[in-house]
């Protein structure tokens, strides 16, 4: 079982290059240090409609700002592909939804997630109710926020996780 076949690796590289042909050289023999800024990554067809694209780019980029090298790019699509193992996806999903990067998904992270998902159409009380319910359901150690273990424990049981946390490119 492989993550990528040869033809799709080519496709990935050319997609990366198409974002900025003048910045990305054709040959990587000398290991050039090329980083594409977040604006280019976020404008890709597969990502531009995703409400979490900024977080995705930030999680997979080296500098944490969303500027990605080719390695980061490949890493990102490798984790998001069909063949990546569930635990790996769960780990990265946790990092994506952890907006303040404190290794816990706290209530403010949850609120941001809900608002991004519904484009701010729920009332604040409804948002609060939803976040409380989530913490109630998934928090195992009762610290009022979700740790990595809580999140993984909850997400590996979800029937849709693998099919929705998946980008085909």
């Amino acid at each position: 079982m492989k993550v990528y076949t040869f033809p799709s690796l080519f496709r990935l590289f050319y997609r990366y290059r198409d974002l900025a042909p003048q910045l990305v050289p054709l040959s990587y023999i000398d290991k050039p240090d090329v980083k594409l800024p977040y604006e280019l990554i976020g404008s890709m067809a597969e990502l531009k409609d995703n409400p979490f694209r900024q977080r995705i780019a930030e999680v997979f980029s080296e500098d944490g700002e969303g500027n990605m090298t080719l390695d980061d790019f490949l890493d990102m699509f490798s984790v998001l592909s069909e063949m990546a193992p569930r635990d790996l996806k769960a780990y990265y999903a946790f990092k994506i939804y952890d907006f303040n990067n404190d290794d816990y998904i706290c209530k403010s992270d949850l609120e941001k997630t809900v608002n991004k998902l519904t484009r701010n159409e729920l009332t604040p009380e409804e948002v609060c109710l939803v976040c409380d319910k989530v913490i109630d359901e998934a928090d195992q150690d009762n610290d009022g926020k979700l740790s990595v273990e809580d999140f993984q424990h909850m997400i590996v049981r979800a029937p849709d996780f693998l099919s929705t946390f998946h980008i085909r490119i």
Partner: protein
Amino acid sequence: MNDSDGESEAGEAASGKKKRDKKASSKDQKEAENKEKQTNKKGKEQDKKQKKSPAESSSSSSASNSSDEESLSEEELTRLKEQVEEKKKLISTMRNKPWRMVKKLALLREAQAFVEKFEGALGKGKGKKFYAYKMMMAKKWVKFKRDFDNFKTQCIPWEMKIKEVESHFGSSVASYFIFLRWMYGVNLVLFGLIFGLVIIPEILMGIPYGSIPRKTVPRAEQATAMDFSVLWDFEGYIKYSALFYGYYNNQRTIGWLKYRLPMAYFMVGVSVFGYSLMVVIRSMARNANENTGDGDDNNFTFSWKMFTSWDYLIGNPETADNKFASITTSFKESIVDEQESNKDENIHLRRFLRVLANVLIICCLCGSGYLIYFVVKRSQTFSKMQNIGWYERNEVEIVMSLLGMFCPPLFETIAALEEYHPRIGLKWQLGRIFALFLGNLYTFLLALMDDVNEKLTEEVVIKNITHWTLLNYYNSSAMNDSAVTLPPMDPADMPRGPCWETTVGIEFVRLTVSDILVTYVTILVGDFIRACFVRFVNYCWCWDLEAGFPSYAEFDISGNVLGLIFNQGMIWMGSFYAPGLVGINVLRLLTSMYFQCWAVMSSNVPHERVFKASKSNNFYMGLLLLILFLSLLPVAYTIMSLPPSFDCGPFSGKKKMYDVIQETIKQDFPLFVAKIFSYVANPGLIIPAVLLMVLAIYYLNAVAEAYQHANTELKKKMQLQRDEEKNKRNNKATTSSAVQDLDDLLVPSAKSESQPKPTEGKTYERDFCHSSGQLHLYFPSVGPANTPTLRLPRARHAFLSPCAQVSPS
């Protein structure tokens, strides 16, 4: 001398083990090399060099290490082996580690270099060169397999098309197309079987058209045989072609290959069902495997909604808009459910409404069944009349298609009375449509059976007529007193029996074709014309056509899937009597794929409520399996009990169709095989075998239930343990009442000091042990040393803490 011999022996043993391990992990190594290639991808030439160099370096390293052989002692050898194993394990699990790509690559290169440097050293002694050669061959083989897999993946048809549909409409609509593609594959295999083993031999090696009565158009029909209207009804030249059962000759062997056509026809008919059964069940088993681990369905509703509802595959703003809206609605619904979960509605009213709805629907189903029966009976009387119009000829098909078009929406409106949860409502709807189609199909079949029986009685009459006609023909020649023997009668003039099998085949082909036409026309009118109308007339219409009625159509997944399943059922039923039917179906599926993809992309809008495709796949497979069994029954019945026509088809002249097997066994196999079969066919043997199978099913069922029971028990235990840990960490009230009492006894200071800080996950238990040790230290101060209460702390300690072995005394 002795030492080196001993070493080389150990080395050979080690290398033997190494070879085995190597074979197991060479694939991983190839994967690891693949990863390395990911970054060196840019220059293509680079890859080729890369591919060659590991093979070269391994052989060169093994050659260069020959001088080191003697210097490695046994402990060093085992230590080296362990290290190599460790590195290999690292390489194989590298993919799962959540590190940065740069770090992974650095570690990977280091590990690979290490493995390649030293594994050559482990192949010592005489087997070294052979070992290196074997390594190289293993690597080449793995590479070849990988290239072949790549090639196979590229060969999967329509992948990009389905991806496009998926990104616009979500995974549920795409699942219909994936199902369609799967059906196409199955049908292609069936077509290959039938075409290659039945149709082609008869056409190539059988006697040609026009030479015997069954292969010629009768004189009476020859005038109109080429007319389009006749051909459209599958009469005329088409009826007397290899597409239908009646064309095949009953010669036992044909051609120089001595190909046994009747036997082949029978076996292909049986294997069509066998293969379909195998493929469907294999697919169901695969789906079932993916669905295991269901368990806590209700525990994480909101969490799952929050983290798994966004479909990352969406790449289109319109779909994204719909998805946002559907997520919002879904959250609102769940919130309302949560707030009103205890609200009790009028149960009696709801039950009454549901019963009423079911009664109405059963009435509809009965009504439609009777209508079909009536129409089929009428068509039989029509076929006896002359001058029948186009409507009378196609009445049956028209009525069935109309029913299929209008009843499902009717069911949906009646089902609004029931107020079920949408997913349950959908299952009821699918079940009802299924019953509708089934009822129609079986009524159709019953009417067909009447027709067949009629034809059978007719046949006896015609057989006599044929006999007398031939007799008269030859007698008349004798009376004319010519010494020359007359040529045999022109095949077109022979009186022909009413070949019932061909009639049945024609009926099925007609039904299939009309079904195809109706589907395509529905899509064209219902989706495309409607979309054009809404788009262009909207400018000059009173109300907003796009938002209100009729607006754009949504892709009806369940209707289409059911249509596909029923179509396949008809193919299965009809393929025994019309071998060409599968070919027609293959063409239909092929054009359907392109046509429906185009229609979906051009005239449909994504669903308001995006349908979750994950769990329903096995439901459709289950329906397919049911249809397969149901379509097997009529065919099996006719094969077993009806006599074949006397003058058409590969079984003509036999008493029953399955006699062909007996004949083959008697004539083609040696004598003892016939004896064996006659013993095996004895009811005394078959009944115990059936009994044994029933018992085996019962036993396996019991075992499965036992496993399920054990599963639930384990889950309960895990839940209990989780609850215990949860409470331990927070020193809340535990499940044990004794401990609760103790809780109350505790001095508040002891309690506050024993609160563990929940900072690290893994060290909880250690913290608690530590703190409970403290607790214990405090206990002497709670009460006098010799009171029984002192025993309670130890009990608590033992009860709660897993590290109870830590005795504080």
